[in-house]
């Protein structure tokens, strides 16, 4: 399997008030196409920072990130935005939907940014909402949806541009256990049925166990990698 995402010796520090915090201290990892990978670790281990750097939202201080063979550090801000638009899908802990837009318009947004015609983006977004099980909720606004439903909309939005990789930051972190597992199940299903590559950041060991591979992050370093169960506990 070819590596779809590759990080080499990634270092990243950020300033908190007067103090410089080293969030990442030389992370190297590879994600292969079609994999479902969990990045697992306690809070403060640098998981979210790593995810931002992997997704081109943030730039590393040192080291390099390649997505689909492209070195992100050589790209301008505008080109980086294009990579995020076309090759990456983000799913966040707090869903991050635009509150004034309907579910359909939220899912359509990346297509609008990519200049896809309105007709086609409505068709694709409707299909995608159907795929995540929200056929009946297309014209609801985020405030009219439950947490689980909002996260499904966010997943539909992440998938709409056929990204190479979906990066999910604590996708179950703001949901109750049952709903959280539904979301994990949905992502696993999309991984199996569509071969969609997922990288899921979580501090929940149970969620991490379902992955093909678990990357254990601690104090900004990869502490170990082990195989996950690859399947769901019931």
């Amino acid at each position, binding site marked *: 399997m070819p590596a779809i995402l590759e990080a080499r010796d990634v270092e990243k520090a950020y300033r908190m008030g007067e103090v410089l915090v080293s969030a990442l201290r030389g992370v190297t990892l590879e994600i292969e196409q079609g994999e479902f990978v969990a990045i697992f670790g306690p809070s403060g281990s640098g998981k979210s920072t790593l995810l*931002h750097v992997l*997704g081109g*939202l*943030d730039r590393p201080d040192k080291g390099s990130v390649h997505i689909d063979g492209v070195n992100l550090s050589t790209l301008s*801000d*505008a080109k980086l*935005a*294009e990579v*995020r*638009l*076309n090759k*990456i899908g*983000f799913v*966040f802990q707090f869903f*991050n*939907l*635009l509150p*004034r*837009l309907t579910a359909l318009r939220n899912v359509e*947004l*990346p297509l*609008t*940014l*990519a*200049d896809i015609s*309105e007709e086609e983006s409505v068709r694709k977004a409707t299909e995608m909402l159907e795929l995540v099980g929200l056929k009946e909720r297309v014209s609801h606004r985020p405030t009219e949806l439950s947490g689980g439903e909002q996260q499904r909309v966010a997943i539909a*939005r992440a998938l709409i*541009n056929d990204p190479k990789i979906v990066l999910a930051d604590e996708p179950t972190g703001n949901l109750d256990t049952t709903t959280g597992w539904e979301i994990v199940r949905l992502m696993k299903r999309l991984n199996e049925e569509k071969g969609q590559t997922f990288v899921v950041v979580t501090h929940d060991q149970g969620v991490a166990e379902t992955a093909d591979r678990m990357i254990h992050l601690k104090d900004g370093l990869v502490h170990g990698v082990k195989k996950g169960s690859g399947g769901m506990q019931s």
Partner: protein
Amino acid sequence: MRWKSVLAMAWESMKQRRFRTSLTTLGVVIGITAIIGLASLGEGFRVIIRDEMQQGFELNVLTVMSGGLLTGVPSPFTDDDVGNISQMPGVVIATSIIQKSVGKLYNDGKNSTPLVLLAVNFTEFVQIYPDRLAVEHGIWPESVSNDTSVMGYNVEHLSEDETFANLGDNVTVALSFTSSLRGRYYENRTFNVAGTLGKSGAAGFINFDDALLIPINTARTLYNTTNSDMIFVRLADPSYSDSVAKAIEDRFGGGGEVRVLVPAAFMEQVETILNMVQIFLTAIASIALLVAGLGIMNIMTVSVMERTREIGIMKAIGAKSRTVLTMFLAEAALIGLLGGVIGVPFGYGLAQIMGQFLFRFGAEATPRRSLITGTETHPLTVVTPVLTLQWAVGAIVFAIGVSVIFGWYPARKAAKLDPVEALRYE
């Protein structure tokens, strides 16, 4: 991102904040209302003044007089000069005039006081002022004998119900002569009244109402000359003024030997002054729009802060900084457009109301004699505002421009937000 989508999103976001958008737009509406109000009143004034000027100055008529070394030389212009000027491009007709001062005019115990004796070629002269010279009684003489004359309105009408002479009367006038032997002296001559003029007013510096018109050949015999004092030139269009005036000056050596009165040039000066006044008024009104611009800047800065997270989301899913900038500028532009489109009719309405009220105080005044035309005019009671397409479109474009300029700073702030920090913003 397509323009349509950008505008649609901007519109959506404005609708979301309806109250705030309305207040911000109101600022622009007030600014544009002030600008258009003053501008259309100004245009209304311009129309009135232009009309009055055009009545007073026959823009198509140039007057050629002696100047420079020729000043004081009697009758410097030959018929050749007139013939030559007639051939110039843009000239319809040129005609010779002899102008003399006169003493009293007598008829059967009554007397009247013309201010000026104009000796003209009647056939040609009426073509110089085809619209101005209207005969009240009698005829405009086409074929003349030596003693044919036409009287101006004030010469004939001594008072409201008393006239000086009837048609066919022989009236006696004291003509003034100068000779080296006798100095200045008067001699009586008799003329037959062929017609009288209605109120004709003044053109340039000659008031036809106070004139006695006689044939030029008679004057030439009386004053022993074959020349003339002045040449009146009618142009096909006022736009020929400069070229014809230049050609005439060149013919006489170009050294100031002749003076050519160009009424169009005077009109231009008046137009320039009107323009300056209007620019000044509009500039003052524009301050209101600038204040509205500050309002937009203020509201948008708040809006960018409130929407920080939203901007972070947009950037995370792949919006470029430029796209974010465009989205915010589109909102500013829409506010400007909306304010402009509403403000233009409001401003025109305001001008209508002001036009009615501001000048009502003049309504009680008695008719006055216009300084320019010498005729009685009615006092300025109402100014009809004039809204030109240029002003309307210009004001809307200005509103959009001001909005975009003031929206630039907050829009730029939004575009420059760091996506990670924006996403973290609560």
